[in-house]
């Protein structure tokens, strides 16, 4: 019985307990509901909570602990020759054991007997391998008897756990139910108890966001430290050559790649700068027009339409840049004698710039609209035209907020992936020419992590170091932007 079906049964039991609790509560007050402290519904919930909560807790802990405990026990029984090998080798052995153990239950009784004989050396391991292959467990070489022994024991203990777990869960549920049932009484403060359980539930839900952040930081940091054990940090942060080569794990003296961050960082910055050169003037002027000139009708129409630009999935922009905008720029360049490659800084930068226009325009618009009317009127009173008022009064007053908006847009541009994956190119160039392709941090994260993964090669782990760099950069930009925006808002409130 899988954990999910146990959970489903427990939930059904909870519903039953709810109705039992309701009926029982009416009975214990002998039909006079005014003598009950809490209404029957809460008695129902009270009983359901006692029935389900403990059992689900047991189920969760068991499911989380089962695998590691079993694997640990299996590993302990391995011969010394295996225990002396490296961690990578051990996990490889364990994965073979795991796949055999997963396949064993599919075998018929006779076939299982063959495997068992192979375990004790009555038949050759090759026979066991053939039997297993018939059921989709393909092994590279004939398994050692100790591997078969471990797998056999593992399969038995798994089967045992699978029978015991539902029994334990249902016993706990029954015990909880009985305990709750005996406590049902008119004076029971069922509502308060149920409400405090719910409150704890809400608190738990709100910590998921914090756990996610901790998860991001820990997981990325952990793999990054792993990476820095293989490649020194100064080579990563100050290296000017990006040439990771192919994974060379297990091959002594294999090609050691070079993991210089600088070309990627420059590419990311270069494209972001081009994007901001498009987005800042366009977004700012659009915001000025919407907040200062446009009537309410144009404003209510144009703001959401402009925001569509931020709602279009970035893969769509990437595709557009790849098949339409890149070739268009290349052909235009050819006309006027410029050699623009189809995927260049310019292509990716301009398309990305369009994508982040709304990030600049919407926030700037809000901030400019928040500048008090008295400042405008004071300026008009001195004889300034509208544009002079905007340039000399509104923009300086709104400047911190606008800078915040631009920083937020910049952080979006730095973290953007799909446009650059499709339109920026993959060669890590340190170039100042916007007509050439460059590559970015995000592109390299994607290219290092698609395909076969080995979690112990620097070629894979470097993606996490890149991810951490990206996370720190965007977090810094955001925190600073929010700080600026918040400080500015306090001025007028």
């Amino acid at each position: 019985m899988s954990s999910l079906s146990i959970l489903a049964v427990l939930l059904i039991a909870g519903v039953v307990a709810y109705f039992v609790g309701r009926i029982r509560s009416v009975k214990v007050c002998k039909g006079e509901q005014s003598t009950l402290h809490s209404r029957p519904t809460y008695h129902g919930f009270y009983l359901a909570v006692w029935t389900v909560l403990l059992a689900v807790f047991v189920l969760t802990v068991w499911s989380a602990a089962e695998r590691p405990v079993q694997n640990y026990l299996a590993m302990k029984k391995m011969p010394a020759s295996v225990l002396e090998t490296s961690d990578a080798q051990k996990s490889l052995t364990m994965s073979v054991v795991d796949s055999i153990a997963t396949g064993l239950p599919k075998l018929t009784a006779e076939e299982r007997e063959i495997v068992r004989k192979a375990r004790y050396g009555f038949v050759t391991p090759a026979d066991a391998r053939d039997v297993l292959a018939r059921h989709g467990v393909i092994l590279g070489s004939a398994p050692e008897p100790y591997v078969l022994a471990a797998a056999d024991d593992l399969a038995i203990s798994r089967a045992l756990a699978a029978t015991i777990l539902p029994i334990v869960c249902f016993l706990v549920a029954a015990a909880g139910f009985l305990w709750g049932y005996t406590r049902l009484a008119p004076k029971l403060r069922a509502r308060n108890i149920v409400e405090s359980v719910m409150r704890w539930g809400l608190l738990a839900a709100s910590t998921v966001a914090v756990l996610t952040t901790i998860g991001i930081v820990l997981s990325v940091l952990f793999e990054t430290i792993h990476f820095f054990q293989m490649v020194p940090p100064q080579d990563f942060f100050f290296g000017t050559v990006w040439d990771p080569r192919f994974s060379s794990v297990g091959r002594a003296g294999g090609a050691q790649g070079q993991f210089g961050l600088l070309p990627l960082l420059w590419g990311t910055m270069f494209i972001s700068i081009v994007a901001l050169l498009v987005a800042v003037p366009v977004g700012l002027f659009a915001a000025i027009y919407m907040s200062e000139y446009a009537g309410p009708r144009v404003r209510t129409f144009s703001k959401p339409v402009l925001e569509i630009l931020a709602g279009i999935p970035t893969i769509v922009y990437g595709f557009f840049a790849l098949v339409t905008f890149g070739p268009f720029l290349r052909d235009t360049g050819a006309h006027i004698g410029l050699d623009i490659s189809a995927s260049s800084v310019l292509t990716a930068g301009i398309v990305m710039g369009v994508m982040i226009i709304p990030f600049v325009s919407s926030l700037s618009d809000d901030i400019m609209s928040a500048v008090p009317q008295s400042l405008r009127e004071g300026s008009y009173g001195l004889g300034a035209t509208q544009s002079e008022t905007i340039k000399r009064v509104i923009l300086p007053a709104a400047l911190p907020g606008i800078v915040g908006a631009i920083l937020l847009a910049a952080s979006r541009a730095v973290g953007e992936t799909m446009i650059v994956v499709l339109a920026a190119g993959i060669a890590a160039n340190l170039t100042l020419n916007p007509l050439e392709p460059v590559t970015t941090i995000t592109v390299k994260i994607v290219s290092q992590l698609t395909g076969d993964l080995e979690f112990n090669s620097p070629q894979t782990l470097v993606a996490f170091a890149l991810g951490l760099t990206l996370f720190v950069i965007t977090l810094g930009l955001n925190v600073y932007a929010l700080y600026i925006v918040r400080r500015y808002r306090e001025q007028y409130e």
Partner: protein
Amino acid sequence: MTDQAATITPSFGPGSPATAKLRKRHAAEKRFRLYGILALLFGFMFLVVLFGTIISKGWTAFVQTSIHLSIYFDPAVVNPSGNPDDRDELLRADYTKLARNALYKVLDVNTDDRKERRAANDLLSRGVDVQLKDAVVDDPSLIGQTREYWVLASDNTDALLKGSIDRKTLNERRAVSDQQIVWIDQMVKDDVIEKRFNTGLFVNGASSSPETAGLGVALIGSAFMMLTVALLAVPLGVAAALYLEEFATKNRWADIIEVNINNLAAVPSIVFGLLGLAVFINFLGLPRSASLVGGLVLSLMTLPTIIIATRAAIKAVPPSIREAALGVGASKMQLIGHHVLPLSLPGILTGTIIGLVQALGETAPLLMIGMVAFVVDYPTTPLEPSTALPVQIYMWATAAERGFIERTAGATMVLLAFLIVMNSVAVYFRHRFERKW
């Protein structure tokens, strides 16, 4: 002195420097205003160009060229043993040959000429056998009979009829030879070749030839992921928002959560992919390419969006209602369950849909967890390998064959259609149900 007075220009009135300066200032005013209009128009124009190119490139993907053939299910080819119950034989038979034979008859091909035969073969899709095989396996009594079928033409034939292959290019440099063009034109005249609605685009799985590639697996994968997000991120997000708005006292912990959510909303999506790879796949041992993992990652990603939207909706419930409920003796939980949640439901739904829209269009984190997979068969559970709609677009966009560009644009149209529908529902909810207090 009097001379000097005559040369002094008047300080106001026509021709005075002030007037000239004023004119300049007014011109600057007009220019400034024009820049604003231009900026807005630039944004609008880009939208129009973007949608225009995608639709003009993509609409042809919704029709696909098929050839009408009367197929003779030759027993010698399909079932040489003569035993129609031998499923293995039926599954292994060379159905392509049946379609080719039928085509030779239509085109009057000289079957002894190998070159000519090959040229005719190239008119048919490499996937024709699947259609015929399914028909025979379903109903073995077809063997020995002749039936009419519309079978798929190859992507080059399709491209020629859709006009994306230029007939004027030289024979050697064209993907379709002169001989093939003659045949195709003849079939067009005989009405045995036509563009039919492309259901394959919506039901087929991955394929290496564009004409048989479809979004079926991607649609199912995306549906599983949306389901996961709806079942996981929505209850968690609403619960978290309720706690923060209704219970959290202004203390350190609440501050930490608050700052956290704001920053989490701005973390690049690709970093969530790294989290998913490290935690769900490497640490918890969930399978790669599974839509469950994709759904989990997208849930974490959309959680801040849903929390922020829900908090705004809860905040909009006026204090008078809270006070009235508390005044007649409701507990905090009763206040929430009976009043706050029902009243803020439209806002919560809108926020939820916006979160789902964001999740549906997201590609980058899914690349990290191995959703870039060649999946032919429909996944039946969220634990089986599948792809997602935007990932399928990415894979087709990077495919080499020309036919895939049309498919990519078509798939993009499908994705955008979903997003537009979902956004419209959100806008409808906002207008129809949201109350102004």
